[in-house]
């Protein structure tokens, strides 16, 4: 215990180094601050990918380390986006409304401004009053607090209910999926107060930064996302490195035994669940201003499953694995579905990747699960010459695909 945290976790330093080099490189290649090699839209894609990596990091903590396969973390991600989106949309509309009203003979009353904003935002769903959930939308600090509070409290309440009654394993996955579906269906309604299936839009226009071009804003958001990812990585690495980390890994491997040793399993799980929900929400709050639009389809249960898949492909139970998986799969996805991948002509049939990418992706999940349970991260073990302990076929734990490299060393 004499060695420092960083000395015990060299991968953290390496990761932070690579991340800063990456950010620096993108900045140099950007239109706004460098040689204009990368287009603004690609920088936005990179920034969004960093946010997805942060969400994957949260997923890795809850699934790879604590063994809870939550199929609801993209819901927290989207909720975070909704919370920041409310302020972005409100503040921008406020600016527009005030400009419009300033042409009139009398100065506008607060009520008139409010009515104008409500009509602008909610005209599309046939309402003209601000719903109660928009109570704090005028204030950035309050809404930023809600980014953390709303998903955090939801996760706390849901987790408390679920863990208290000892819903575990597959059942918990299905329950979290049901929660996601319920939330998505709720937001799809027009009277949910969040514009139904229209969602919130125009989020890329940051209020107060009207004079700043999207070129610059995209780089700023990339910096913010990279910073958040770095901080998130440090935080998660710190959480899993100490005794706390050992306990949650023990819960993953044999929950009953940890309970018998006197640990409050539910408390640990609840903490991890809530913490990861908050991390996911922060990632979402950074993601959606770059995406520009958020609608309830973002909460569809399938999004959360994709998150799990990224982590699985990258390698569960190792933090850099989650980041690599999320970055690789989401970038590949946008490359293939963007129509930029060259088609393969087989003579009798042309494989058009827009149509066949999902099939390739689906089959590669199967392949990864079957043949490489450690995911891409397993390659690093291979490079270091690490091998899994040979237990003569006996399982190491219920989740024998999810080992830490440190454990494997012993």
């Amino acid at each position: 215990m004499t060695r420092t945290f960083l000395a015990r976790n060299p991968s953290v330093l390496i990761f932070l180094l690579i991340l800063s080099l990456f950010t620096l490189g993108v900045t140099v290649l950007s239109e706004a601050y460098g040689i204009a090699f990368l287009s603004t839209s690609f920088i936005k894609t990179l920034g969004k990918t960093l946010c997805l990596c942060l969400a994957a990091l949260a997923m890795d903590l809850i699934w790879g380390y604590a063994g809870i396969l939550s199929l609801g973390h993209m819901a927290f991600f989207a909720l975070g986006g909704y919370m920041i989106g409310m302020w972005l949309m409100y503040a921008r509309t406020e600016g527009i409304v005030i400009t419009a009203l300033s042409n009139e003979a009398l100065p506008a009353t607060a009520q008139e401004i409010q009515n104008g904003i409500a009509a602008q935002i909610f005209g599309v769903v046939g309402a003209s009053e601000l719903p109660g959930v928009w109570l704090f939308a005028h204030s950035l600090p309050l809404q930023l607090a809600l980014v953390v509070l709303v998903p955090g409290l939801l996760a706390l309440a849901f987790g408390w209910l679920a863990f208290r009654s000892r819903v575990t394993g597959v059942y918990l996955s299905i329950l979290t999926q049901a929660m996601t579906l319920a939330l998505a269906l709720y937001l799809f309604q027009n009277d949910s107060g969040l514009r139904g299936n229209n969602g919130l839009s125009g989020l890329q226009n940051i209020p107060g930064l009207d004079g700043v071009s999207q070129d610059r804003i995209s780089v700023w958001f990339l910096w913010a996302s990279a910073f958040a990812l770095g901080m998130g990585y440090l935080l998660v690495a710190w959480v899993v490195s100490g005794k706390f980390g050992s306990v949650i890994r023990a819960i993953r491997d044999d929950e009953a035994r940890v309970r018998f040793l006197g640990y409050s399993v539910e408390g640990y799980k609840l903490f991890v669940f809530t913490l990861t929900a908050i991390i996911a929400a922060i990632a979402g709050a950074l993601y959606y201003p770059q995406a520009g639009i958020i609608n309830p389809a973002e909460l569809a249960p399938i999004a959360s499953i994709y998150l799990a898949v990224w982590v699985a492909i990258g390698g569960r139970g190792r933090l850099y694995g989650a980041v690599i998986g999320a970055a690789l799969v989401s970038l590949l996805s946008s490359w293939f579905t963007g129509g930029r991948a060259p088609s393969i002509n087989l003579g009798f049939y042309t494989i058009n990747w827009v149509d066949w990418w999902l099939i390739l992706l689906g089959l590669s999940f199967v392949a990864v699960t079957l043949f490489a349970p450690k995911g891409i991260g397993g390659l690093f073990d291979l490079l270091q010459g690490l091998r899994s302990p040979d237990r003569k076929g006996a399982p190491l734990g219920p989740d024998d695909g999810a080992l830490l490299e440190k454990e494997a060393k012993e």
Partner: protein
Amino acid sequence: MRAAVAALVLVLVSLLPLAALAQGDPQVSAAQIVENNRAQIEKPSRQTIGPVISALAASGDPQAVDILTAWANRGLGLRKSDGAFVLMTETADGYALRLLDGTDAGTAARADITELRPNSGVRGVIANALVQFQLTDPDRARRASALTTIARDPAPELLEPLRASLEAETDPALRAQKDRLNRLLTLRFDPDPAARIAAIDSFSGDLGLDLRAALNPLLATTRRAAPQGTALEGNIARELDPGSDLTETEAYDLLVAANLAPARLTPAELKAALVANIVDGAVAGIPLAELNTQAARNRAYTALEVAGLVPIAATDEEVTQSVAAHRFFETYAEADASVTAAASSVLSGIEIKLGTMQMADLTLDALSLASIYFLAAIGLAITFGVMRVINMAHGEFIMMGAYTGYVVQLFIPNYTLSLVVALPLAFLVTFAAGVAMERLVIRHLYKRPLETLLATFGISIALQQLAKNIFGTQARPLTSPAWLDGALTFNDIVSISYIRVAIFVLALLFLMFFLWLMKRTRLGLEVRAVTQNPSMAASMGINPDRINMLTFGLGSGIAGIAGIAIGLFAKVTSELGNDYIVQSFMTVVVGGVGNIWGTLAGALMIGTLQKGIEWFNPSNTLAAQTYMILFIILFIQFRPRGIIALKGRAAGD
């Protein structure tokens, strides 16, 4: 002045023949009437044509019916050569003509005739006039269509002809229909209140939509206001208390509408008034910059009022005062109190019965939804419930079954036959897919249930995309045979479509099949043994690999058949399975894993819940689903193992 008198005389003269005709003078032929009202008939308008048409109808001339029918069907025209009215029948190269008295008038080219084209309003008036002739028409179909016309568009003047035709009706079904229509028209239009009340009472306990449509206008109310202390006039439904029955704003709006109080100033009007009185950057001495609150604006307006620059508008206090000084009440549109009393008592009887019937209908709906969920979930109950394998591709197996049905229909055009072929074929296709998946993927993951979820999810998105590549993104129809069209109707409210009945029956069949398979066959015994303890089962000579494979194939095969059932009422798309997968899992989990009765209970609970919640807010099925899922999440808290939980060793972990 002289011109005006002349015009008046002209009008009176032109009305004279009409006045005579209205009394049914038998001397004047229909042709004569048409001729006398030439101008009206050439350019008819709904408002003024009535008397002419009634005169025609009442003329007693048998030709009148022909003329009216032709007129309504655009078969009446003017011969351009002499301006005579002719009845036209279209032929290959023009029209065959008859004069109004029915005599043949040769043919004419299209260009020689000016067709009269009455607008739809006028045609409606004509149709009403014709009804009385059709009611006594020898052709049964005509009589029936006349009754439909009356039922669709009841009018007071139809009551007499309907009654007159009642006695002569020989067809018992039409007779009953006429009798019912007669009573419906009587209760609305008869001048004698006693007859109306008798008609209303005769319907006691009836649930017909037409009856409710006839009674509701009688009980329609309007809100009115009167000064305090005056007697209320009209047929009072109830008195309203401002504050509880209606808001102060609504009450005041009533007063304004009745000219009992001055209009209140809306914020927009107030603003306009202020803007109109801006003097040197200030209104009534208040600088513009300060007018950014409503209070300041009110002050400015009051100042303007004092200066006499703007009309006096009601302030909030005045509004409260004038609302307090008036009584508010609702009156029935129907003036006769005894009629409205009878109508409301019959209607309230109907409401009660209606509520019961709606409950019954809701129960049927819930049952049908439950059987759909049950069908979708029963395959899962096997793969997930018995084998503890999460198959996210289960929804895609359902989709595969539906597409199999679609493809079979492409080759076999007879829908009944194709269904007979498709059901076993869908089972075979999905059975094969299930077995292949079990052999290739799931077999290796029995120890890692969470990873089965991932692997099968991969298969699920691959299959979905494959279906999209093959069948395209648009929905494909899976047409049900004609004998499944229509609905089983008990009365106007309680009905259920035959497809849903068929699905219900199918669900029952599957329940029995499953029970038989698990409890009565060797395979079922072996499945249960392998589920409980694979190694013990293996040492008893059972091959667990084979059993697992067969069980998984069976569960998948049932999903395929469910796919056909679901495809029959929903459109077949590649996302068909997506819509059911979460609900199916919830059905199994809520019901209790590993028990078919649990799945049944789960499906019943979810179906009933969803329909029940929908009943509170019928317009919003999304909300119903949301609350249903929330309820289930809470329910799992109290019964984490489902409604029917396995106990003891069978429960496994």
